[in-house]
């Protein structure tokens, strides 16, 4: 089943067009990666899907329903959850309060405890640091918190915007391993990354984004093997 579909989406910042008639789909159960350089439009795409930005053209549908005009805070309740670029940790809230914010839009309070258990199993570090303020945590810990918090809304689609940004290599491997684990537990993942190597290796399908347009698409393995992509994004060739 198609979970998310973007059809001819355009986004403008003032007169500058950041996304040009972009179309792609995310099927239920997949990990889909969007890779691209700085300024290619990756974060803009994510913000348009989560509703922080309004497209100037095109249609976004989620589970077959047109959500193009739906407000961002409603989309969370519908099942789209995002760990934003830069992690967006609330600095003056504790780890537990940050996680609790992830349940803000939820009506079923009963499942919250189970989901907290699940997040603590995925990220034992967060359980150890429950009482610590978000602003005082390391980058890697904040990223875990951002992903854990996004999971607290029990999303159907998890949007991850550059989870590896600014992290030490051992954290990057750990984060990507956990992304795969979250996916096998049944959450569809749309991942945006500059770290193309890991993002392609973990993805079922992937797209390459260049100045607001999709230039390549295929399975993660196909793109990893593509010489042009190797040269441009994988630092080999």
């Amino acid at each position, binding site marked *: 089943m198609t979970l998310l579909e973007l059809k001819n989406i355009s986004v403008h910042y003032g007169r500058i067009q950041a996304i040009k008639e972009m179309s792609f789909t995310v099927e239920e159960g997949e990990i889909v990666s969007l890779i691209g350089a700085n300024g290619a439009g990756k974060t803009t795409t994510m913000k348009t899907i989560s509703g*922080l930005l309004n497209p100037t053209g095109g249609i976004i549908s989620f589970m077959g329903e047109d959500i193009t005009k739906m407000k961002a805070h409603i989309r969370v309740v519908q099942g789209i959850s995002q760990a934003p670029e830069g992690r967006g*940790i609330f600095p003056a809230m504790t780890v537990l309060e940050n996680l609790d914010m992830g349940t*803000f839009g*939820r009506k079923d309070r009963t499942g919250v405890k189970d989901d907290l258990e699940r997040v603590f199993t995925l990220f034992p570090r967060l359980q150890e640091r429950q009482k610590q303020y978000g602003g005082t945590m390391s980058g890697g810990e904040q990223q875990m918190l951002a992903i854990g918090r996004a999971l607290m809304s029990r999303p159907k689609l998890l949007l991850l915007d550059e989870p590896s940004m600014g992290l030490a290599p051992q954290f990057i491997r750990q984060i990507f391993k956990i992304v795969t684990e979250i996916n096998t537990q049944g959450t569809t993942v749309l991942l945006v990354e500059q770290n193309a190597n890991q993002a392609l290796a973990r993805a079922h399908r992937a797209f390459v984004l260049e100045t607001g347009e999709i230039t390549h698409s295929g399975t993660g393995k196909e793109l990893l093997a593509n010489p042009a992509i190797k040269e441009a994004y994988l630092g080999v060739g």
Partner: protein
Amino acid sequence: MIPTLLTLLPAASADDSSWITFDIPSLMQNFWSATFDGLTFGSIYALVALGYTLVYGVLNLINFAHSEVFIMGCYGVFFTLSFLGFGPSAPNLSVGSIIVNLLLALVVAICASALTAFLLERLAYKPLRKRNAPRLVFLITAIGASFTIQYTIFLVRGPNPEPALTMFKSRPIFEVFGTFIYDQQLIIVIAAVIMMVITERFISKSRTGRGIRAVAQDPDTATLMGVNKEKIIITTFVIGGILAGAAALFYVMKIPSGVQYNGGFILGIKAFAAAVLGGIGNVRGALLGGLLLGLIGNYGQILLGNSQWTDVVAFVVLVLVLLLRPEGILGTSLGRSKA
């Protein structure tokens, strides 16, 4: 011109070489009465300061029209009292009917202030947000809204203060450190503290409170968590209005003759200063800043021997504190995202 100028200076006796004198014996003698009265004014400042601080938290905006939110509450009190038939001297009423009258005036004041805050946000600020206006435009709009409300009142009620209406004669009820505490002081401080504690609890514990803190720290991420930012903003304005309405009742109790079209201005500035002193955006900071400003002003006034000095001393202390701690005493902990 010279005689006029001279009269502006505090009266210095002939044998004084300097025009500022420190009357330390008088401060010692009146220390406790200055303290109790300072705390009374301070809790009024603190209630208004909360309105500045909460709105600054969620919108990063100094809502200069908050002083008019406050003065509308004062008019609410005034009209309630004149409707109930109060005059310049206090009538002889039973405790029960005094309480009923106070509560009635409180409800009307809160409604008037909260409604003003609500309309202010809906008519002045929300349209600007929809157009993604730069921050400077919000600030100028705030000042414009402040003048608009002031001169609308001027148009309707004229330039003069409304007649003073007294609810009840303030009586001393007990003695602490050789100084009487008046029932009025006690009512104001206790009621204000209760309201502040409720507000603090609400912000830190309730679901809406969590939403307010989330929007204050990172509005975009708050939205991604399912927080309806617009609803949080209007709620914050209304909470600020409710607190300003309560402050209005206490203020009119204390200074019955202060209801005037521009009567909110000075108090608004002081409450804003209190918010900055404690750390703007910080709820506890507003409480601390309000109380400190009330105390400092009162001590300074007695020390320097002239009530004209109240505001000068308060603001000098504000400047000194900010020189050493630009974030205010408690800092902006409810605060902004550092990212």
